[in-house]
C-alpha cells in the first residue's frame, strides 16, 4: 500500500525543481519576482484599472457596460494569451502529479500543440470578428449632467487617449494622482497602459535574440574548427557595432511601430547568447554523456538540442532576464529620443521626455514617475537574473 503512494510522490527531483528551491530561498528574489508578476497583472488588466469608460452605467434607466463594449482586439488577445499561459502552467504542474512519466513527453507536446492552436486561432478570430468601435461618449459629463446614474468607474477613471487641455501640465492632485502631461492626459493611466509596451518589448525582443543566439552558438560550439572560426569573426563584427546607434539608424528607415522595435532589438542583441552557448557547448562537447549519446547513434538534432542545450542553457536564461531589462531600457531610450512608439500609444520613455514641458518648465512628476517605473522594473529583472544565476551556480549547490 505504501509503495503505491511512494510511486506517486517520489518520481525524482528534477533539475528545475532544485534550481527553483534555491531561488526561492532568497527573499529579495521572491520580492522581485512578485513585483514582476504584479506588473504583468497590471499590464493584462490595464483597461479595467485605468479607463474613462465606466464598468456599469445606467442611462435612461437602462443598464449598460461601456468598458466591456470598448475593449479592443489587443485587449482580448492579451486576456486570451494570459488565460492560455496560466492554463498551460497549471497543466504542467498537474502532469507532474497525475501523468505517468512514461507518457509525460507525449502528453505535454499534445497539450502545448492544442494550446498554441487555441491561442493562434483565438487571436485570428478576435482580430477578424472585432470591428473597431470608437465610443466617443463622454460618460463623465453624462454623469455630471445627471443624464446617467449609478456609474461605477475603474480605479483610475481616465483613458490614455483622452486628452483634456484644460488640465494640461498639472502636478499631482486628488483627481490626477500623478499629475497630467502636456495634453492633459492622466500620468498614472498612461503609466499603467505603458507597462504593456515595456513588458512586451522585453519579452519578444529577448525571445527573438535568444533563439538566434542559441542556434548560432550551438552550431559554432559543437562543430568548432573552421565553422567556429568563421562564425566567431561574424559575431565579433556584430559586437563591434554599437548596438544602440545601429538600432537608431535602422529605426529611422522603418515605420515607427512596436513590432519593428522588438525585431530590431532582437536581431542585434543575440551575440551575447551566442557566445554563452558556444562556450557551454565547447565544454559539453567533451563530456561523457554527450559522447555516450553520440555512441548510441542519436541524431545531431537530439545531441544539440536535447542533450546539450538543457545542460548549457543556464547562462542564457540568466542573460535573458538581464536582456529583458536591457530591452525595456532600449525601448525607453528610443521613445525618449522620439524614435519609439508613436503617441498616443503610451510608453514610459516617451513620457519621460515630456518632463521638460512645452514652456520649458521642469515638470518633475513627468520625470519622476515614469523614471521610477523604468528603474523598478529594470531593477526587478536584474535581481531575478542575479538570483537565477546564483541558484543555477553549481558551486553553491550541494553535490547530489
Amino acid at each position, binding site marked *: 500500500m505504501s509503495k503505491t503512494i511512494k510511486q506517486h510522490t517520489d*518520481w525524482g*527531483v528534477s533539475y528545475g525543481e532544485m534550481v527553483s528551491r534555491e531561488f526561492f530561498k532568497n527573499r529579495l528574489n521572491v520580492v522581485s519576482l512578485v513585483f514582476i508578476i504584479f506588473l504583468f497583472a497590471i499590464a493584462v488588466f490595464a483597461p479595467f484599472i485605468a479607463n474613462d469608460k465606466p464598468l456599469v452605467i445606467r442611462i435612461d434607466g437602462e443598464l449598460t457596460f461601456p468598458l466591456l463594449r470598448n475593449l479592443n482586439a489587443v485587449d482580448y488577445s492579451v486576456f486570451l494569451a494570459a488565460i492560455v499561459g496560466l492554463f498551460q502552467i497549471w497543466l504542467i504542474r498537474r502532469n507532474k502529479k497525475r501523468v505517468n512519466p512514461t507518457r509525460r513527453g507525449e502528453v505535454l507536446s499534445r497539450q502545448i500543440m492544442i494550446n498554441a492552436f487555441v491561442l493562434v486561432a483565438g487571436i485570428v478570430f478576435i482580430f477578424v470578428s472585432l470591428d473597431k468601435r470608437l465610443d466617443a461618449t463622454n460618460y463623465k459629463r453624462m454623469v455630471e449632467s445627471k443624464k446617467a446614474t449609478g456609474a461605477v468607474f475603474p480605479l483610475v477613471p481616465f483613458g490614455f487617449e483622452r486628452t483634456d487641455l484644460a488640465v494640461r501640465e498639472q502636478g499631482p492632485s486628488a483627481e490626477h494622482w500623478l499629475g497630467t502631461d502636456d495634453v492633459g492626459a492622466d500620468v498614472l493611466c498612461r503609466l499603467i497602459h505603458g507597462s504593456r509596451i515595456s513588458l512586451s518589448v522585453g519579452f519578444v525582443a529577448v525571445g527573438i535574440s535568444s533563439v538566434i543566439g542559441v542556434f548560432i552558438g550551438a552550431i559554432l560550439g559543437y562543430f568548432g574548427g573552421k565553422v567556429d572560426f568563421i562564425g566567431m569573426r561574424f559575431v565579433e563584427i556584430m559586437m563591434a557595432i554599437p548596438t544602440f546607434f545601429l538600432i537608431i539608424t535602422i529605426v529611422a528607415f522603418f515605420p515607427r511601430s512596436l513590432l519593428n522595435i522588438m525585431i530590431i532589438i532582437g536581431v542585434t542583441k543575440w551575440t551575447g547568447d551566442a557566445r554563452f552557448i558556444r562556450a557551454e557547448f565547447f565544454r559539453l562537447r567533451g563530456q*561523457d554523456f554527450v559522447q555516450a549519446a553520440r555512441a548510441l547513434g542519436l541524431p545531431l538534432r537530439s545531441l544539440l538540442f536535447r542533450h546539450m542545450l538543457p545542460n548549457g542553457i543556464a547562462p542564457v536564461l540568466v542573460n535573458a532576464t538581464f536582456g529583458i531589462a536591457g530591452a525595456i531600457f532600449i525601448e525607453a531610450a528610443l521613445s525618449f529620443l522620439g524614435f519609439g512608439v508613436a503617441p498616443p500609444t503610451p510608453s514610459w520613455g516617451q513620457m519621460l521626455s515630456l518632463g521638460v514641458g512645452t514652456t520649458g518648465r521642469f515638470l518633475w512628476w513627468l520625470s519622476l514617475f515614469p523614471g521610477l517605473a523604468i528603474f523598478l522594473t529594470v531593477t526587478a529583472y536584474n535581481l531575478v537574473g542575479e538570483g537565477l544565476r546564483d541558484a543555477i551556480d553549481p558551486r553553491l549547490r550541494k553535490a547530489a
Partner: protein
Amino acid sequence: MAETILMNDNDVLLSIRDLSVTFHTDEGLVRAVNGVSYDVCAGKTLAVVGESGCGKSVTALSVLRLIPDPPGKIAGGEILFRGTDLVTADEKYMQSIRGNEIAMIFQEPMTSLNPVYTVGDQIVEAIEQHQDKKGPAAWSHAVEMLKQVGIADPEQRVMEYPHQMSGGMRQRVIIAMSLSCDPSLIIADEPTTALDVTIQAQILELLRDLQKKNNMSVVLITHDLGVVAENADDVVVMYASRIVETGDVAGIFDDPLHPYTQGLLRSLPRVGSVQERLEVIGGTVPDPLAFPDGCKFHPRCPIGSDEPRCMTVEPELREVKPGRCSACWYTPGYETKEEFELYETKYGKHKEISG
C-alpha cells in the same frame, strides 16, 4: 585452446587493419594510434591492455568514429565491420551502427548519463531511435532491460534521475542502455575503473552473463590484468600507440613474449608470496610528441636499453608461434635468418637473455 587473432577470419566480426589516428595539437602532430590491427571474433572477448595514453581508447573510439575531429583524424587504415569499412562510411550509416550494432560503455558512470533526464528517458530515446518500438512499448522494453541488468524495482528506478543512483547502479543503467538495441559488439572502455572492487566483480560478471546470453562480442579495454585474466579470450597489449603483443589469454599469462608484457605481469602482486616491494617497470610512458627512435619501449626495456638495434630500428608485429605475435627483436623466433646475420656482422654477438 589457442585462438589465432590475426589469422582466423571465418567468424571475424570486427577487423581493424593498420589503423592510424593522429591529433593535430598546438605542440605538434601526435600519432595516437600507429598501424594497429586486430580482429574481434563473434561471441568472444578481446581485451586491449596498456598504460594510460597508449592509444587503446582512441582505437576503440575510432571504431565508432567518435574521436573529436578536430583535432583528431583517422589518418589511415580500415575498420571492417561485417565487411563494411567504417572509416569511409557516411555519417548516416555510422548513426545506424552506433548503439544499434556496436554499443559502447564508458569509463565514468557518474558522468556518462545526462543529468537532466530520467534514466528511463535516456534508454527510451535509444530504443526509439533504432527500433520500431515507440512510447509505452519502448518504456516497457526499458524496464525489461533494467531488470536484466539486475536493478531491483525497475518500474520505480526507470523514473529516477541519475543523481539518485549509486555509481554501480548507474553503470548497470549504462549497460542496460547499450544493450537495449541488442548490439552484436560491445566496446567497454574501462567499464569498472571508477567502481569499487566488489561492484567491479558484479559488473564484470553481469557483462559476461549478458554476453553469453546474447552471443555478443566484447572489446574490453582495461589496464587491470586481473580483469583480463578473468574475462578475456584473447589479449592485445599496446604500448605507445602500437601493438606489442597479441595472443590468447592463457598464452599471454603463462608465456609472455614481449619484455613489456613480462614487466607488466611481474609488477602484479601475487597472493601467497612474500615480497618486500612490488616490481615496477622503470621510467614513464614516452611523450607522444617525442617518441624515442627505434623500439618505443627500449629506454625502459631490461634488454634493449643499450642495444644499438633496438635504439634505431623499430620492430614490427610478427607472428612468432601459432596464434602469438610479438614486436620485439629478442622474442625467440622473431628474427629472420638474414636479420640475425646482418646484426652479427653489424654489431657483433647477440646479447644473452636469461629466462
